[in-house]
């Protein structure tokens, strides 16, 4: 039993399916009489759509029909609303929210915006027909740089929105912060770019829609992270009741936020399925993904830190321009505002902080949450400015950090950003990380690198995180006569291993066989509510929902156990799968109790067979604060600019670890994405014409297995949070909070002797080489 208990590195149940090619991903879904949709996308960043002629295309073989924005509007469908947690400007007025329809109606505002959809018997026929659709565009001037979008005279993306301005935002105490700066001995400042990136999940987005005329209802199978919320959105758009859509996600090959939101394609498919009376499949191809999957980060910030003579931090001031693209996407406006504000200042005790931001429209694919959604940005900002302070003011980078970490006895503490940091030990985690890094051997390794003509640098980056996502979650437990147990949850795995970790919690709590647990997720018919995946919420919300339901089962089973032993319920104790009468020492196992629960003759009066089945909802009251510390050692080739991350260390405080193997996977994956952002990933739009330059994997660089360093990971489990019964803090996004600053600072540390003080991400070979060349001049 212990082998599958909480805390055990149980191998992923789902992997047998995934690695033998027997999973069911969206492209494996093929109902009978399936048709195929192709999305014709805008080739222009900004253009008027004067007319669309589909007559020739409609006459092509195999074509069932073509839908354009005009058809869409004629049906009276409504725009997709933003659900941003920050929806008001500083003055209290609502954010500027342009209408986002599923199609570009009379104007396209980014490359890749849907203009028409062709449905045909085969995908090839749909593509053939799409080539014959004649769209008469009148190209307009475009702007893809958020800083330029705010300037006077910049091309205007929305006629009724002046200055491409969505909203402004502030948090913290401006007056106290200004005073801290006025009284400081030192003030350092940096302009930082948080590069626009995209998730590139291994499985592209896609969906299959079906319509049943007899019941006037729909089935949508969709590679999404969130079936319930998106069903509500799609139902609103199509003006049908939510329960008319059965929304299911099959196995999903990665999400990272890019499969979170209300995209335009699924409602179009639902409509097409009804209109043409056939199931419709659409699968984005990899290149379309770069145009039409949401992007992330895309922030330009000025960060200032005030210090006293000894290096104590007095104040932090950050001003951000957030690029949200052409529309307010599902929660796009939240990331550069509230999402980036909460963890400002990171792991440090800074008495005064002030954060302000503007969110700006540009002629680009909109941004939405990408793994971390604001917290990686905040983490990068604080750690870069701290490194910069150490370098320019002559402090040792380790000492300066050590001096300013939140002491353990300062917790619980509400930061000036209002974040409730209740548990943890920042100095302890910092020292443990540092100890792993073998600082004593560093100078020797520097010499070894130097002999090869290389530079070596080190940096350490403590981080503070916070969770997010939907606060409520459902878990349902149902027992079968054959001894199997079905666990239904509204949280969703898109590859993270919930099919293993959730049954672990259930099996551990009930003391039953892990292998008898059947796992059901991501199905609007299986659970009444569901928060899907996002904000590192799986264990914190979903795991606690399972625990709550399992504990309710134990309470019910106790009554039956007492009946079976002729004992009093109050005398029953439950541990390790066995009920014991504390007086008589008689025992009965949970398995026996479950078996008895189906036998009418063994039940107490008033108990019905099957009554152990339990549905339960858990609600998180306060978000938790995962935290930890990363450290990196890098080698830089000054002649070519190539950077290699040689060694990497992490200690995380996620509270108690349910499955260390899965936690390791989360940390390593997060570090890989953080390394990608730090060194190679960047969505680039052409400044002049707004074309997407990085439109394929030939130009958008992703880290590969050989880009990854040796990694040593550890967990600090001595400070569970009291905010939830499992005491867990959320593990999914931490990796990409720590990695960008740890890696960038280590590279800059290596290049200190060359006089290089700052390079914006990604630190590509050319940028590193040029920084060295320029510093020599």
């Amino acid at each position, binding site marked *: 039993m212990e082998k599958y208990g909480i805390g055990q590195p149980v191998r992923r149940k789902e992997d047998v399916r995934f690695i033998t090619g027997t999973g069911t991903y969206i492209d494996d879904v093929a109902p009978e009489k399936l048709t195929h949709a192709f999305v014709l996308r805008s080739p222009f960043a900004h253009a008027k759509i004067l007319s669309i002629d589909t007559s020739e295309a409609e006459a092509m073989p195999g074509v069932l029909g073509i839908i354009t924005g005009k058809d869409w509007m004629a049906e009276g469908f409504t725009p997709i609303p933003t659900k941003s947690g920050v929806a008001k400007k500083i003055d209290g007025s609502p954010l500027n929210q342009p209408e986002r329809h599923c199609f570009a109606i009379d104007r396209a505002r980014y490359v890749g915006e849907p203009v028409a959809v062709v449905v045909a018997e085969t995908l090839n026929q749909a593509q053939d027909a799409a*080539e014959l659709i004649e769209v008469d565009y009148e190209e307009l001037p475009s702007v893809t740089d958020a800083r330029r979008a705010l300037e006077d005279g910049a091309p205007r993306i929305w006629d009724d929105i002046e200055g491409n301005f969505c909203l402004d935002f502030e948090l913290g105490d401006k007056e106290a912060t200004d005073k801290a700066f006025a009284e400081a001995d030192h003030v350092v400042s940096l302009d930082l770019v948080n590069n626009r990136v995209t998730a590139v999940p291994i499985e592209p987005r896609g969906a299959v829609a079906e319509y049943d005329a007899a019941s006037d209802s729909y089935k949508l199978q969709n590679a999404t992270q969130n079936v319930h919320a998106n069903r509500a959105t799609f139902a609103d758009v199509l003006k049908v009741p939510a329960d008319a859509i059965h929304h299911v996600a099959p196995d999903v090959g990665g999400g990272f936020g890019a499969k979170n939101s209300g995209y335009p394609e699924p409602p179009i498919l639902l409509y097409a399925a009804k209109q043409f009376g056939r199931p419709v499949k659409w699968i984005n191809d990899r290149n379309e993904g770069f145009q039409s999957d949401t992007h992330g980060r895309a922030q330009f910030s000025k960060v200032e830190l005030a210090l006293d003579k000894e290096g104590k931090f007095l104040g932090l001031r950050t001003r951000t321009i957030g690029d949200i693209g052409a529309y307010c996407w599902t929660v796009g406006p939240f990331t550069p505002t509230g999402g980036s504000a909460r963890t400002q200042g990171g792991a440090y005790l800074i008495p005064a902080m002030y954060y302000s931001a503007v969110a700006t429209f540009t002629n680009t694919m909109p941004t939405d949450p990408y793994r971390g959604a604001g917290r990686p940005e905040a983490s990068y900002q604080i750690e870069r400015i701290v490194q910069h302070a150490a370098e320019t003011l002559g402090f040792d980078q380790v000492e300066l950090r050590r001096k300013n970490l939140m002491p353990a006895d300062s917790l619980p503490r509400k930061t000036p950003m209002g974040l409730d940091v209740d548990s943890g030990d920042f100095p302890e985690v910092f020292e443990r990380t540092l100890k792993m890094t073998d600082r004593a051997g560093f100078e020797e390794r520097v010499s070894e690198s130097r002999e090869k003509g290389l530079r070596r640098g080190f940096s350490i980056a403590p981080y503070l995180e916070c969770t997010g996502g939907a606060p409520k979650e459902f878990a349902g437990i149902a027992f079968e006569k054959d001894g199997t147990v079905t666990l239904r949850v509204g949280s969703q795995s898109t590859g993270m291993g919930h099919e293993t970790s959730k049954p672990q919690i259930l099996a551990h709590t009930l003391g039953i066989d892990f292998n008898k647990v059947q796992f059901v997720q991501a199905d609007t018919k299986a659970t009444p509510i569901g928060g899907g995946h996002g904000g590192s919420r799986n264990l914190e919300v979903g795991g606690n929902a399972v625990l709550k339901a399992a504990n309710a089962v134990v309470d019910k089973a106790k009554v039956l156990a007492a009946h079976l032993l002729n004992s009093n319920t109050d005398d029953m104790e439950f541990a390790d799968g066995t009920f014991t009468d504390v007086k008589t020492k008689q025992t009965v196992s949970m398995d026996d109790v479950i078996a008895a629960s189906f036998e009418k003759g063994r039940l107490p009066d008033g108990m019905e067979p099957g009554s152990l089945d339990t549905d339960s909802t858990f609600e998180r009251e306060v978000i938790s604060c995962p935290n930890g510390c990363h450290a990196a050692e890098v080698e830089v080739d000054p002649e070519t600019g190539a950077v290699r991350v040689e060694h990497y260390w992490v200690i995380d405080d996620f509270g108690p670890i349910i499955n260390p193997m899965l936690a390791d996977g989360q940390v390593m994956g997060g570090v890989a994405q953080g390394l990608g952002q730090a060194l190679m990933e960047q969505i680039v739009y052409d400044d002049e014409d707004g074309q997407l330059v990085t439109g394929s994997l030939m130009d958008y660089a992703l880290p590969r297995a050989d880009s990854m360093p040796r990694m040593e990971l550890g967990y600090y489990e001595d400070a569970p949070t009291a905010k939830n019964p499992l005491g867990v803090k959320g593990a999914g996004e931490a990796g990409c909070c720590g990695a960008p600053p740890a890696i960038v600072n280590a590279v800059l540390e290596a290049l200190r002797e060359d006089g290089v003080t700052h390079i914006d991400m990604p630190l590509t070979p050319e940028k590193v080489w040029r920084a060295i060349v320029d510093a020599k001049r």
Partner: protein
Amino acid sequence: MYEFTFHQPETLDEAAQIFAHADDGQFIAGGQTIVPVMKQRLAMPSDIIDLGRISDLEGISLDGDLLTIGAMTTHAEVAASQDVKKAIPALAHLADEIGDPAVRNRGTIGGSIANNDPAADYPAALLGLGATIHTVTRAIPTDDFFTGMFETALDEGEVIVRVSIPVPEKAAYVKFPQPASRFALVGVFVAKTADGVRVAVTGAGPCVFRVKEMEQALDKDFSAAVLKGISVPDDGLNSDLHASADYRASLVSTLARRAVAQAQ
């Protein structure tokens, strides 16, 4: 992908006849360029003529100081060949660093040089080694073969049969990968041959080219030190998202020095 007719001839004559009768015929070797291009609907050949069943195009042999490689030999076969490893280890190493295992087990030496991608690896090796390209009709020295971006001396419908490569005294290839595609951002092949030193550069310009000034210096003294101060002009070099011309020029010098140091 647009529709096309697929042919699998067993002889070169048969292949030539099919090509002659096709509206817009296209030979396919390993398909590592043409297939992605067709999938993106950027090419619509009427006929695809697969060269994979023609035995005349296969095989690797080492005869004294001459290494011969059939046009349909895959990168994986070149990388694993004992003859290649023995005669020109730099060439086996180059083949082993092309793309990924899937690419190396499909892509062929003939396909690569016929395509002449400005960032491909083989053109640097063959130009650097002073190889000869044998086609169905003639033998073309590599100095005359690579004529421009995606352009070669091949006539319409002319199929490469094999390449023959004189075994050099020493050779090395050093590639700096483009971060996304891992094609050569710049790759430099250096060889000390019976006819003198040859330095061939791929990735940096629109077409593979030799650096005569480096060759002359290395002819006098085959050492990395003599290359100090010798650089190629930025003029005419590629400038794109991943590298501007001056960075590429700098890489040419750096990689050339490293290649000389590594040559064995």
